[in-house]
């Protein structure tokens, strides 16, 4: 078997830091786009953050959104051309802090699109500040004594939060720290895109990722921290899947 770059990725080399999970996730999305044969009708929305340059890496049409507004932008794209497959690619600051309203209401409306949510418990591009997903006690540039819930509140579990909304068809948390988990992550991304193709509604795949640069850890220790500390707080698995629960009841909307 020959190892090849997915067609849905351009030839531009990634700018991401060594060890960063973005490269793996980009590849998984591109593989899914290739396998479903949808590159020609896919439009992606890049966030503000490290992944803003995703618009250079995916071969499909791409739009760069203002910070946090990706799902409103994606709503406009999808409503204009419902035959397009639309996905957003967002970090935890983008999606769960500044973009909370856009996220919750896109989900509540059941916007038929796919959200790829990168949870690394930190703001990456700006240099490692506290995010809504930062754990209790976690030291960041803006929680130098560790996140204290008395003053800085509690971490947000986005999939669990969104799963209460009727418009959500799939909310699943995955990780890309092991081969097995990478395979699970790809399955979840593929399912999310397939649900969108079937018109099932809003789909979100939350992906636990490492940020060795801003965590200040080696790659090895980053993976250890992800498994030992991050994952117990954000358990991987399906949080909501309307397709699995009542497959026969879900109407296909064209």
């Amino acid at each position, binding site marked *: 078997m020959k190892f090849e770059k997915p067609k849905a990725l351009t030839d531009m080399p990634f700018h991401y830091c060594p060890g960063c999970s973005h490269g793996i996730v980009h590849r998984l999305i591109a593989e899914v786009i290739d396998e479903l044969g949808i590159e020609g009708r896919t439009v992606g929305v890049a966030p503000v953050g490290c992944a803003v340059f995703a618009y250079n890496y995916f071969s499909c049409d791409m739009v760069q959104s203002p910070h946090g507004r990706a799902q409103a932008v994606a709503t406009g794209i999808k*409503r204009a051309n419902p035959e397009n497959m639309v996905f957003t690619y967002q970090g935890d600051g983008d999606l769960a802090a500044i973009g909370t309203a856009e996220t919750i209401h896109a989900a509540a409306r059941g916007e038929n699109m796919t959200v790829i949510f990168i949870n690394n418990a930190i703001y990456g591009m700006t240099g490692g500040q506290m995010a809504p997903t930062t754990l209790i006690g976690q030291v960041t540039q803006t929680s130098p004594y560790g996140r204290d819930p008395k003053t800085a509140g509690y971490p947000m579990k986005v999939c669990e939060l969104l799963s209460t909304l009727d418009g959500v068809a799939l909310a699943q948390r995955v990780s890309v720290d092991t081969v097995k988990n990478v395979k699970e992550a790809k399955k979840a991304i593929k399912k999310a895109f397939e649900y969108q193709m079937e018109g099932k509604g809003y789909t979100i795949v939350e992906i636990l990722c490492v940020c060795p640069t801003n965590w200040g850890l080696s790659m090895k220790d980053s993976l250890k921290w992800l498994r030992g500390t991050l994952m117990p707080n954000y358990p991987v698995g399906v949080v909501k899947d309307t397709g699995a629960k009542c497959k026969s009841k879900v109407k296909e909307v064209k």
Partner: protein
Amino acid sequence: MPEKVLMKGNEAAAEAAILAGCRHFFGYPITPQTEIAAHMSNRMPKIGGIYLQAESEIGAINMVLGASAAGVRTMTSSSSPGISLKAESLSYLAGSDLPAVLVNIQRAGPGLGGIQPSQADYWQATRSSGHGDYKMLVFAPSTVQEMVDLVVDAFYLSDKYRMPAMILSDGLLGQMMEPVVFDESKVKKAPEKPWATCGHGDKREHNIITSLFIDPYDLDAVVKARYERYEHIKENEQRYEEYCTKDADIIVVSYGASARIVRSAVDAARKEGIKAGMIRPISVWPFPDKPILSKINDVKAFLCVEMSMGQMVDDVRLAVNGKKDVKFFGHTGGVVPTPSEVLEEIKKINRGA
């Protein structure tokens, strides 16, 4: 000949957008523009269009950004406080060279201000709706019919120049009923949009819509190229009406709803033998400096009348460039100037006061 119908300014703006081919409207309620959203929510489902009530003005303008990137004619509307919220994405629209039409039915500010008509968002519309170096096309209707005509033209010019266009109106026009005609023959089709992100269909390279240029020299070049386009627009798209200016000693400059009052004041002044006239900017960006420059040697003074503390008066003064006196009269807070107040100001100038 299309028939005349009696309509509120707000409803007419919405119907004009539909006439122009807009089928994607993203709204959010705010007084005094809510009839636009209400009209769209009624009409769009009947004509295969989309009315979507966003979670906020921010949500609405970003949906507009997405729909515009996808290549369709799209619109949102709001009133002053809501426009402030849209500021971020107006900057992104301009920075991404995306067309879109935005209606501002101005109310009094600052803050929550009041819900009565105002023209205090002139600076915001023409100077600094958002961050960075950019401009929007801004049109200010004075009648409900002109609202219709300008909305239709705004879609065309916004597409032509790939930049956002704003209808800068106010609660007076928005709530006023007048007979209007919707003339399909005035609608110009949207140009081809080969840049749109609507799926490349395996037929072309991928399109990217972005406002990010990380290399400062790239950004410098992109913005400068955009400003060349703005210079072309300044030269070619100035719109204005001149009223009784031919022999005028005193020219009142006024736009939108306040120009209606000024027109009455000019008529009253003429009856008293005072040679007054009016220049009414219809485009406020580009600001029509041409008629002012052509009259500058013939008049005693200019008077600017606005429903604000004096904002457009800056543009009049820039055009006049110190060569003549430029006076200002206005009310703010939702108070509309009366014709007799304006007449009194004209008389004062006539007396040399």
